[in-house]
C-alpha cells in the first residue's frame, strides 16, 4: 500500500500521549478510535486549562466588579478572541458562543422567524430557503421548522450517484426568492467537501445569505471565514478537542448587529421593563443567560492545541490515513465506499457497506475487536435513503490516529466478513 501524500510531519506518538483514553483496551484489544466525526477525544492540555480556570478564576461573567468576576470575564472574552483568530475572523464580536452547532443553526433560523415583516431577515410565503440533500439533520430540521412557521418553501440541491452535489439545477434552486442558502462544508456521512465558492457566488448573485456548516471542516483544516466569503459559519467544540457543551456561530458583524434576538434572558438585554425590553448589541444579544464559560476557556485551549500542531499538517496527516483506508477498501471484495471513493475534495469520514452484513452487525463485530466506528444514518437519513441503504458504517480519523489503526480496521473488516459468511 503506497501513501498518496508525504508522511506526517508531527510526532503522532507524542500527540497520542496527550489523550489518556487512547491507552485503553476495549474487549481485551487496544482501542482503535475511528469515530471522530461523531466526537473527538480531548487532550490533557484542554482539560488542564479548563480545570485551572475553574479551580482558580471561576465566577459568573459580565456582571461583576469583584476580582474573580473580572478574571472570569477576561478569560471568557479572551476565548472569544482566540476563536476569532482561529477562524481568521476580522472581529471577535462576530463570535457567538452556543451550546453546540445545532443551537447555532436554530439561532439563525429562529432569528429570521422573529424578524418583523420588511426586515431583510423576514420570511414568508413565496420566499425560499435552500439546503442540500446531504445536510446533517441539525442544519435541515431547523429550516424545515422555519418554513413551516413562516410559509416559506424549502428547496434542496440533490446528490449525484458519486456522492457529490448535483449542481445542474443550481440556478433554479437558488433564485431571486432564495433568502438563505445553508449547506455543509464537509459532509459527515459522505466525506464530500463542497465547492463553497460556486455556491457562494450563486447566492451572491441573487442576494441570498449563506450559512456554512463547518462542524466537520473546522476541526480538520484551516478555516478562513473571510476568504470563504460566507455570511455565517458554524462549528461545534466537541468534534475539535474541546468538551461537549460548546459551539460557535460566527456571523458578519453588520448582520449580527441587526438580526433579531433568539433566546431571551439575562445579559442579552439593554433596558428591561415589565411591559417590554430592548436588546444588547451582538454578541451579547445572542448569549442569553449564564454562558458556557469554562467550556469557552477549554475551546480556546483546543484552538491553541490545533494551531500549535498546525491544521495544514493535521489535514495532511488525515488525508494520508483516509487515502490508505479508501485504497484498502478498494482492495476488498464485497465492500463499497458510499460517497466519493477518491481523495479528490474529501474529508476524513468514510462510509462504507459490507455486502450481506447489516451495519449494526458490522459495528458490533468491530467493537469486539476494539475498533470504534459509528453505524446508523449519522443524522443524515436522507442520504441513506438516496443511496438505498438503511444505514452505513463510518470510519473517521483524526490527528491522533495512525496508519496501523487504519490497517487494523481493514483487517477487522475482513474478520467481520469471515464471521458473517459462516
Amino acid at each position, binding site marked *: 500500500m503506497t501513501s498518496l501524500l508525504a508522511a506526517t510531519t508531527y510526532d503522532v506518538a507524542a500527540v497520542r500521549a496527550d489523550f489518556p483514553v487512547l491507552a485503553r483496551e476495549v474487549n481485551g484489544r487496544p482501542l482503535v478510535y475511528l469515530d471522530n466525526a461523531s466526537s473527538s477525544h480531548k487532550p490533557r492540555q484542554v482539560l488542564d486549562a479548563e480545570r485551572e480556570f475553574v479551580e482558580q478564576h471561576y465566577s459568573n461573567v459580565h456582571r461583576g466588579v469583584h476580582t474573580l468576576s473580572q478574571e472570569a470575564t477576561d478569560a471568557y472574552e479572551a476565548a472569544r478572541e482566540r476563536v476569532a483568530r482561529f477562524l481568521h475572523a476580522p472581529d471577535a464580536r462576530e463570535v457567538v458562543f452556543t451550546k453546540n452547532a445545532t443551537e447555532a443553526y436554530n439561532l439563525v433560523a429562529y432569528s429570521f422567524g422573529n424578524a418583523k415583516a420588511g426586515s431583510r431577515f423576514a420570511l414568508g410565503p413565496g420566499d425560499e430557503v435552500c439546503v442540500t440533500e446531504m445536510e446533517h439533520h441539525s442544519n435541515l430540521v431547523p429550516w424545515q421548522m422555519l418554513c413551516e412557521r413562516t410559509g416559506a418553501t424549502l428547496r434542496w440541491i440533490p446528490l449525484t450517484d458519486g456522492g457529490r452535489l448535483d449542481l445542474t439545477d443550481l440556478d433554479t434552486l437558488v433564485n431571486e426568492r432564495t433568502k438563505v442558502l445553508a449547506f455543509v462544508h464537509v459532509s459527515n456521512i459522505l466525506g464530500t467537501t463542497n465547492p463553497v465558492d460556486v455556491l457562494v457566488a450563486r447566492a451572491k448573485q441573487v442576494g441570498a445569505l449563506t450559512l456554512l456548516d463547518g462542524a466537520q471542516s473546522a476541526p480538520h483544516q484551516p478555516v478562513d471565514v473571510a476568504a470563504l466569503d460566507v455570511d455565517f459559519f458554524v462549528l461545534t467544540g466537541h468534534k475539535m478537542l474541546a468538551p461537549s457543551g460548546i459551539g460557535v456561530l460566527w456571523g458578519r458583524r453588520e448582520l449580527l448587529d441587526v438580526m433579531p434576538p433568539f433566546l431571551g434572558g439575562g445579559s442579552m438585554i439593554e433596558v428591561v421593563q415589565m411591559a417590554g425590553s430592548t436588546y444588547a448589541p451582538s454578541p451579547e444579544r445572542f448569549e442569553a443567560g449564564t454562558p458556557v464559560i469554562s467550556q469557552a476557556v477549554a475551546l480556546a485551549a483546543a484552538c491553541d492545541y490545533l494551531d500549535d500542531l498546525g491544521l495544514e499538517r493535521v489535514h495532511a496527516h488525515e488525508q494520508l490515513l483516509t487515502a490508505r483506508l479508501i485504497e484498502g477498501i478498494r482492495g476488498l471484495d464485497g465492500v463499497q465506499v458510499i460517497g466519493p471513493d477518491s481523495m479528490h475534495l474529501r474529508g476524513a469520514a468514510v462510509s462504507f457497506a459490507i455486502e450481506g452484513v*447489516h*451495519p*449494526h*452487525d458490522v459495528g*458490533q*463485530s468491530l467493537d*469486539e*475487536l476494539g475498533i470504534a466506528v459509528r*453505524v*446508523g*444514518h449519522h443524522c443524515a*437519513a436522507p442520504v*441513506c435513503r438516496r443511496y438505498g*441503504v*438503511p*444505514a452505513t458504517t463510518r470510519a473517521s480519523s483524526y490527528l491522533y490516529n495512525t496508519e496501523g489503526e487504519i490497517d487494523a480496521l481493514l483487517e477487522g473488516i475482513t*474478520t467481520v466478513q469471515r*464471521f458473517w459468511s*459462516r
Partner: protein
Amino acid sequence: MSESLYQEIILDHYRNPHHKGLRDPYDVEVHHVNPTCGDEVTLRVKVAGGLVQDVSYEGQGCSISQASTSVMTDLVIGKPVDEALQTGEAFLALMQSRGQLEPDEDVLEDGIAFAGVSRYPARVKCALLGWMAWKDATAQAVTTGEAAP
C-alpha cells in the same frame, strides 16, 4: 467473536428465518421503523377464536432484529392471544434487565438466546422491533374483532 451477543441460535434464525414472507389471510398489517438505525418490518396478524392464527412479515435489519422476529413468530403462532402477550411481556422484561435476569426457557424457548443482548442497550431496540410490531397489530386486530358485530 461476540459469543455473548451473537449466540448460535440467533445466527441460525438470522440465516434461516421462520415464517418469513407476507401471507394471506390477515386482519391487520402494520409497518414499524426503528428511526435510529433504519431497520423496518412490515407485519401481518390473523387472530381468530382468541388464538394467534398466523403472523407473517417482511423486513430489513440487523441480525438481532431479524432473528428476534423469527423467534417471536415461533413463540406466538398458535397460542392463545393472552398467553402470547404474556410471552411478549416476559421477553420485554428480559430485554430491559441489563443482563440481570435469568430467562425462563419454558416460556421463551429460543428467545433465551437474547439474554446477552440486554447488556447492549443500543441493541435492545433491535431485538424489540418485531415484538412491538406484533403487539401493535394484535391490539388492533383484537379491538377490530371486538368492534365487529
